[in-house]
């Protein structure tokens, strides 16, 4: 199919529009020098290919399609390109191409999606080919200028040499000639063996650190544009409710107020010169809500709805082998437990925001987004303009964690800018949510319960396991069209039989894992770690229960069930051995220290953790040390993997210990960090990361470890107290010795 936008924009026009776009950004946003603005640095220098621009002054601009939200992908992808490019790492900067350019160029950068720990593992092959193709063209340009065979030329750190004639040149000197060459066929390129890497795989410092220590990093909330107005917004606190009316006249004379704008049928925004004035006016705005059909829903109703699912006849099967009914019927003894996992919110430190500028001819959006193309599609739809007249500029994210894969805030910003454009066409409007809006208009970690039943024989061996999950489907909220026969496959993360993405690490003689979908009215979303988080709590804590019920060592029981899963087992063993499993942990300040284990496979990587905790006589929990092992296959930047593993325990332990959203009168009760506590430095344990990369595959890093944080600690709590915590978060549940 002919792409009309591609036809309209050839490569030369892209270069021109890129430079012009950069110029606009450069004029308005001098502080945007990092990230986006390397584009302005590229100026009129022709690219070697979509991934690489080499400037005459030897600077190398690597184009990064995925978003940087703290996870280090920007640096990792640049390392992979630079590895194949053979350039001088000290010359490397990065820029984001735009989704509009991607569309115009037949998606030359492929996906912009940044979620599911996929940033590097999904794109590593083609970004490396991009770097290699540019290297080949640069060397060819030099060889042709010297009239020597390409094969006789070598390159190191951007310096090309021909030993036979003792000639040398540099990438910057041949960049113009290289840009005119026909690129090699990507499939013909032989990539380097990772064993020979000199930049990739190394513990390099991040490229985006300095600006994050001096206030210079420009996040979406910091954007400055000429004539910029600011908007604050309030959506109906009860999901599914609507605005009946509002009294704009009541606030019209408040300082700075420009306009009160209805947004869709459920929200109202106040536009003012500054955000503080907009927010103050919004707080004073009388709004009459129609709370709708869900205004009477309480948390207890949702819990009861899920509880019913635990024994429902209808359920979608995720994993099955053997005859579970027969195994349980014939069991000498059964172990049974019911667990629950609450709603949780992302609470990115930077609240949701987007800036939009609308004229009848063009709509531009500046947004921190995990999916530039989804933000672009939302812009096209909300503006009503053709795609060729829309553009999205990405900024580094002040946290994402899955929340910024959504486009609700982009649609709102465009709707507001379009409304403002009736009086003031082309006036940019920055929409910034309050923290209260952020917490009450989330796309929440889905709520589930799980009933686990294990059948045991006379020797205490597990003969069968039934794991019934009841609760919410994320896809039912975000992509209902992808649910088939009532089954959301994402529900079974970490529990699948094979597939390479999220596989169970145990073999049982009989197994049934099924899901009774129960969808309350609260919107669900992808929350860092997603369904692997609660699934790993359920399975790993329950296996710990089985081990204790049968007087087996939790590690020994696992080893026996993991015989057919050597990669899972190797990582578990690595964590257990480093922690010293089998020997008593040394006391800390007179308190006995106890250990707990957990392991899983998710986002393509194998992870395990051993937690060391103590619990005082008064029931006070201290988490002293975590040993965490990871096998992500190949490692691109080990010190960044360590940073992700450490951070995963802040996220995962906060979730296990404190984080919970509850529903009252159809709305989320928690509005800010005073009622939705986040783990802080005094609660953060030491984390020792053990990297055991086995090569041969590419696994994710940003998410999988989160899932082992909670069960490792909960199992250690049981060892310390005899108390089995089955309802998360721990919250105020007593930990005094049982």
């Amino acid at each position, binding site marked *: 199919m002919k792409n009309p936008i591609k036809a309209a924009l050839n490569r030369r026009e892209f270069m021109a529009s890129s430079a012009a776009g950069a110029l606009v950004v450069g004029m308005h946003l001098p502080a945007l020098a990092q990230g986006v603005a390397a584009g302005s640095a590229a100026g009129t220098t022709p690219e070697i290919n979509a991934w690489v621009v080499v400037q005459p002054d030897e600077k190398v601009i690597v184009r990064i399609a995925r978003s940087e*939200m703290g996870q280090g992908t920007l640096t990792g992808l640049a390392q992979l390109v630079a590895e194949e490019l053979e350039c001088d790492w*000290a010359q490397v900067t990065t820029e984001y191409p735009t989704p509009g350019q991607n569309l115009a160029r037949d998606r030359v950068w492929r996906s912009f999606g940044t979620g599911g720990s996929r940033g590097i593992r999904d794109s590593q092959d083609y970004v490396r080919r991009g770097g290699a193709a540019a290297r080949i063209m640069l060397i060819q340009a030099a060889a042709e200028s010297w009239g020597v065979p390409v094969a006789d030329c070598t390159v190191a750190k951007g310096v090309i040499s021909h030993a036979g004639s003792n000639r040398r040149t540099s990438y910057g000197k041949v960049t113009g000639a290289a840009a005119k060459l026909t690129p090699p066929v990507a499939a013909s390129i032989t990539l380097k063996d990772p064993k020979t890497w000199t930049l990739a795989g190394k513990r390099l410092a991040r490229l985006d*650190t300095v*600006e994050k220590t001096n*206030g210079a990093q420009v*996040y979406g909330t910091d954007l400055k544009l000429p004539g910029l107005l600011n908007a604050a917004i309030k959506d109906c606190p009860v999901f599914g409710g609507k605005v009946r009316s509002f009294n704009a006249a009541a606030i019209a004379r408040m*300082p700075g107020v420009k306009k009160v704008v209805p947004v869709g049928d459920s929200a109202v925004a106040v536009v003012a010169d*500054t955000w503080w004035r907009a927010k103050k006016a919004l707080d004073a705005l009388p709004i009459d809500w129609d709370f709708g059909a869900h205004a009477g829903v309480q948390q207890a109703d949702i819990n009861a709805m899920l509880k019913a699912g635990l024994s429902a006849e209808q359920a979608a099967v995720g994993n099955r082998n053997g005859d579970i009914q027969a195994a349980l019927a014939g069991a000498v003894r059964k172990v049974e437990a019911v667990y629950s996992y609450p709603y949780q919110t992302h609470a990115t430190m930077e609240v949701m925001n987007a800036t939009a500028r609308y004229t009848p001819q063009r709509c531009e959006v500046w947004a921190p987004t995990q999916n530039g193309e989804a933000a672009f599609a939302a812009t096209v739809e909300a503006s009503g303009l053709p795609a060729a007249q829309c553009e999205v500029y990405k900024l580094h994210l002040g946290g994402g964690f899955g929340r910024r894969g959504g486009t609700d805030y982009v649609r709102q910003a465009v709707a507001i800018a379009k409304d403002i454009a009736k009086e003031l066409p082309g006036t940019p409007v920055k929409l910034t949510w309050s923290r209260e809006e952020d917490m009450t208009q989330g796309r929440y970690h889905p709520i589930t319960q799980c009933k686990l039943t294990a059948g045991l024989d006379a020797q205490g061996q597990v003969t069968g396991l039934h794991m019934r999950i009841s609760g919410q489907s994320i896809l039912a909220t975000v992509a209902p069209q992808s649910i088939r026969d009532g089954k959301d496959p994402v529900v079974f993360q970490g529990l699948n039989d094979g597939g390479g993405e999220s596989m169970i690490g145990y073999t049982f003689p009989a197994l049934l894992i099924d899901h009774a979908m129960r969808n309350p009215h609260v919107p669900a979303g992808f929350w860092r770690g997603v369904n692997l988080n609660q699934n790993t709590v359920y399975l790993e804590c329950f296996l710990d229960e089985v081990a204790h019920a049968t007087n087996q060592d939790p590690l020994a029981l696992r080893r026996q069930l993991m015989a057919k899963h050597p990669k899972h087992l190797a990582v578990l063993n690595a964590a257990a051995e480093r922690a010293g499993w089998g020997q008593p942990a040394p006391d800390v300040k007179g308190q006995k220290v106890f250990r707990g284990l957990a392991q899983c496979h998710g986002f393509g990587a194998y992870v395990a953790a051993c937690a060391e905790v103590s619990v005082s006589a008064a029931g006070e929990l201290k988490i002293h040390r975590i040993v965490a092992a990871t096998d992500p296959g190949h490692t691109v930047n080990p010190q960044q993997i360590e940073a992700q593993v450490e951070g995963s*325990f802040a996220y995962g332990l906060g979730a296990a210990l404190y984080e919970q959203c509850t529903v009252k009168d159809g709305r989320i009760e928690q509005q800010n960090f005073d009622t939705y506590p986040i783990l*802080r430095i005094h609660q953060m344990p030491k984390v020792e990361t053990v990297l055991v990369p086995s090569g041969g595959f590419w696994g994710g890093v940003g998410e999988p470890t989160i899932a082992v944080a909670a069960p490792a600690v909960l199992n250690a709590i049981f060892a310390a107290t005899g108390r089995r915590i089955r309802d998360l978060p721990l919250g105020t549940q007593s930990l005094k010795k049982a």
Partner: protein
Amino acid sequence: MPKLNVNGKVLDHTAEPDTPLLWVLREQLGLTGTKYGCGVAQCGACTVHVDGRPVRSCVLPVSAVRPAQKVTTIEGLSPDGNHPLQKAWVQNDVPQCGYCQSGMLMTAAALLKDKPKPTDAEIDAAMTNICRCGTYNRVRAAIQQVATGQKSAGLDIVHVVRSAA
């Protein structure tokens, strides 16, 4: 016109007296390094110094800051990002998303001024800022590195000198 002394300069603003200092800094004076995170003094992303003491600027009405008082923001912590803590932050690759780090640095700078060699418990008590990425252990390591005068906290990160932008 009301005045504020920020980073050594006396600046005018037009904010209403009850406007939190945070929003005067960000929206009237263009100093966006100080961040909004919660608006209720919970997260610390908005931390600045007033006469050297750390304050949560999101709940401090601008009218409560006298013109003679010295406000310091992340942009004024050092002339060119060379405060020992900023250098240690870079050496330890502390930030991930980075959004909370201005507040972290301002809180840590005030702590070290007060207690040049803080204990772990003193770090815990002072550094109540929220970091959603979970950089806490590197924050602690960087503070301790400055406090003890060590060259590195042992994270073994390879730094390459980048050419001038």
